């Protein structure tokens, strides 16, 4: 029954937008699916199922031999997705009286079966499954499975279900292979905590809270250390005899996207830092880094034009020695000593910013305009490296956001709890006599403001396009954002980072909203 159960889980995950809903579905899977299918499913969700996959042409040939070509073509036109068409059109065989295969059985047989026997094997499975299980199976064997849940979410559900802290699970996760029998035994209290045995594992990161005014007032300068907050991607570097990895903030292995860094990882340590694209000493805009992150196997040209490096700011392990219990100052000294000793290529150490008073630090923060710097990080000198977001140890102190007064142009309904509200707003600025859309915001407003906006939109709709409403170009919104960047993908030629609604400017006529040129002027070096 298990392929069917797993297909039902996948289908529910895809249709369920809310995080809590997905967590509930996953917990139910862990509680009810049998081993080893439970772990095979988890691996598929976490993107860690290495499968020998079949070519889509194999499935195409199978269905072509079983259906009328004209009807298949009409059906494909109507449905759109070919795998789904096959799943729906596959002729049922009421006589096929075998039991449907288990999930682990499917994975195992795919591995063991010769290429010549693969078509018959897959056809025999499709014959005994229902349409949603056929869909999941086709996606699984052709390598196109999309699951509607992240690895992080799956692990969070595992933590919720077992009552074990997520951080503890993270630290053993990468040391155990699918179907994770040792992890399930441990989580169910039937076995010891799995020992990674030197395999590279992810150690949960220490995270910062945003600094607010009331918190700032309580800070005593000598207790704190300051660093720049770089606009890159947080990574953990793990390297040792068991191998080397780059982990993202959520514990995802991103090593494959950065093969240029691999030769530098010859040491034995665990480090915390920021992944950046740097050209001739200048940190490139975030969008350049994003292009690297989106490629699972970047070409030589991309690596050359978007050269990556890591700016280090903490050390968790030096060899086998766990430094996480040491205070920040001691770890910082160990980091600098380690760096002086190892001199790894394509890495440097993020400098500490000296300051005598909090007022001086505030002036430094206000004075930075470089796009690569989002603001400051404040770290308590005596704080140990604590996983998660413990308040009062690390603060992120972003620069004040920029704002523009933009005109509301379109609105779309939200998802889940907000599905009855028009809560996603597209806003624009003036270019000559026309308004050009410059961004989309779906946060920043209060519940009362959302109610008001929803009503205003319903009363001022001029056209509808499916779920989108176009509105009278009359309402001005003050939009806050962290930075503007040039973009070839947007009609206006500009993209905003983290736009959100700061205020509704009912007092301001639309004609007095900002012009596109004003926004362009905020891009450093004039947006060259």
């Amino acid at each position, binding site marked *: 029954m298990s392929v069917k159960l797993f297909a039902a889980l996948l289908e529910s995950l*895809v249709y369920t937008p809310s995080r809590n809903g997905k967590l509930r579905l996953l917990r139910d899977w862990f509680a009810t699916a049998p081993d080893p299918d439970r772990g095979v499913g988890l691996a598929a969700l976490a993107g860690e199922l290495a499968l020998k996959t079949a070519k889509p042409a194999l499935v195409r040939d199978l269905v072509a031999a079983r259906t*009328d070509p004209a009807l298949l073509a*009409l059906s494909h036109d109507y449905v759109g*997705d070919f795998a*789904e068409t096959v799943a*729906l059109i596959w002729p049922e065989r009421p006589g096929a009286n075998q039991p449907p295969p288990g999930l682990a059985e499917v994975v195992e047989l795919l591995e063991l079966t010769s290429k010549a026997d693969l078509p018959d094997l897959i056809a025999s499975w499709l014959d005994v499954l229902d*349409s949603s299980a056929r869909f999941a199976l086709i996606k699984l064997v052709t390598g196109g499975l999309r699951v509607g849940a992240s690895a992080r979410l799956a692990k969070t559900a595992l933590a919720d279900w077992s009552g074990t802290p997520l951080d503890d699970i993270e630290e053993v996760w990468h040391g155990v292979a699918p179907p994770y029998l040792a992890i399930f035994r441990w989580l169910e209290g039937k076995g010891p905590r799995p020992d990674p045995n030197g395999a590279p594992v992810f150690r949960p990161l220490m995270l910062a809270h945003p600094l607010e005014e009331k918190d700032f007032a309580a800070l005593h300068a000598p207790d704190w250390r300051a660093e720049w907050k770089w606009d890159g991607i947080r990574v953990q570097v793990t390297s040792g005899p068991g191998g080397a990895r780059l982990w993202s903030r959520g514990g995802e292995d991103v090593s494959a996207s950065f093969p240029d860094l691999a030769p530098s990882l010859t040491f034995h340590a665990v480090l915390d830092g920021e992944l950046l694209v740097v050209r001739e000493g200048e940190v490139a805009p975030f969008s350049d880094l994003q292009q690297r992150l989106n490629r699972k196997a970047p070409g030589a040209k991309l690596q050359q034009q978007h050269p990556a490096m890591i700016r280090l700011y903490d050390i968790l392990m030096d060899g086998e020695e766990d430094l996480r219990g040491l205070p920040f100052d001691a770890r910082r000294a160990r980091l600098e000593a380690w760096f002086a000793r190892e001199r790894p290529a394509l890495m440097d150490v993020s400098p500490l910013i000296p300051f005598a008073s909090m007022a001086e630090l505030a002036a430094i923060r206000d004075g930075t305009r470089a796009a690569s710097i989002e603001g400051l990080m404040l770290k308590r000198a005596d704080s140990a490296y604590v996983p998660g977001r413990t308040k009062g140890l690390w603060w992120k102190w972003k620069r004040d956001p920029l704002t523009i007064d933009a005109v509301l142009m379109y609105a779309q309904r939200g998802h889940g709890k907000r599905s009855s509200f028009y809560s996603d707003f597209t806003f624009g600025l003036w270019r000559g006599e026309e308004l050009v859309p410059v961004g989309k915001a779906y946060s920043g407003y209060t519940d009362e403001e959302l109610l008001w906006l929803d009503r205003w939109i319903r009363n001022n709709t001029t056209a509808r396009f499916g779920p989108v409403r176009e509105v009278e170009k009359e309402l001005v919104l003050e939009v806050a954002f962290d930075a503007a960047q040039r973009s070839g993908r947007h009609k206006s030629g500009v993209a905003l980072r983290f736009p959100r609604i700061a205020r509704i400017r009912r007092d301001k006529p639309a004609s007095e909203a900002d012009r596109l040129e004003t926004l362009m002027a905020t891009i450093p070096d004039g947006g060259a």
Partner: protein
Amino acid sequence: MLAPHPETWLCTRPEGLFCKPGDFFVDPVRPVPRAIITHGHSDHARPDHGAVLATRETLAIMRARMGEDRAGRVQQEIAYGEALEINGVRVTLRPAGHVLGSAQVVMDWKGSRAVVSGDYKRRPDPTCAPFEPVPCDVFVTEATFALPVFRHPDPAEEIGKLLRSVALFPERTHVIGCYALGKAQRLISLLRESGWDRPVPLHGALMKLCRLYEELGVSLGPLEPATVANKALFVGNIVLAPPSAIQDRWARRLAEPVPCLASGWMRVRQRARQGGVELPLVISDHADWDELLDTCAEVQAPEIWITHGREEALIHALAQRGQRGRALHLVGLGDEEIEDEPGGGE
């Protein structure tokens, strides 16, 4: 004498399908002097005809929806199986299994027989009489789900899926978008068959027809208006509403609603996901692909006329089975299922 081919006496006009010797239309889209109405859905039963002939139930549904004065100046009831001569055309109604009162129109003229089936389905439905195949020379069929990708699953399995979701999310309201005539009452019956005996809260737009079904002898168990005052009823319950309401302001009274939609279209993922549906239920009041082909075979008609839907695939498949298919391209039909999609008005 050779019987006249139905194409000599049954034709399409802008108003709809017209029986020349009988001088009446079947399901006309504009007001006409004389109409036979197959069933009460608004794309088949339009207001303001002169004389209307239909089953007792269909007439009652028409009066309830459009008012006494617009459901036909002269309303004539005819029971299933009862024969009536209209200008020499013998007219009989047979159950179509689509919704309560739905009928096929059987017309005999000089030894030739045409059957206009209206919308129909072949699955058992406790809220209406089952479809009866009638052998004929021309069978006029719909083709709403005429593609081999449309094979409706067992509705009991779909209800099982719904009840499992209710068990998994006991603090939330499952709100099912469904058409007010037919689908709503069938869903309630399916729920009752599965043992669901709680009062079913209903959106105001559904209440009237549910009450009418009960008056016409279809019992649906306890029903409640889904008003704000009845909020306590919503937690962990299943609420029915028109598709357009399930994600609009009306739904804010529900407890973290899980939007569900019951329709044959839900078989295709993209269709289901477009509307933000979280639980698609493939439950249809139309024949699926196999049922369309089986029905065409059962009635043994050498010619099949197709009123609306995906006629190309059906004509192709019928040709392989030795039956000639012909598309009538009747306009104005098929809107009933389109209304099943959310976002179609507020």
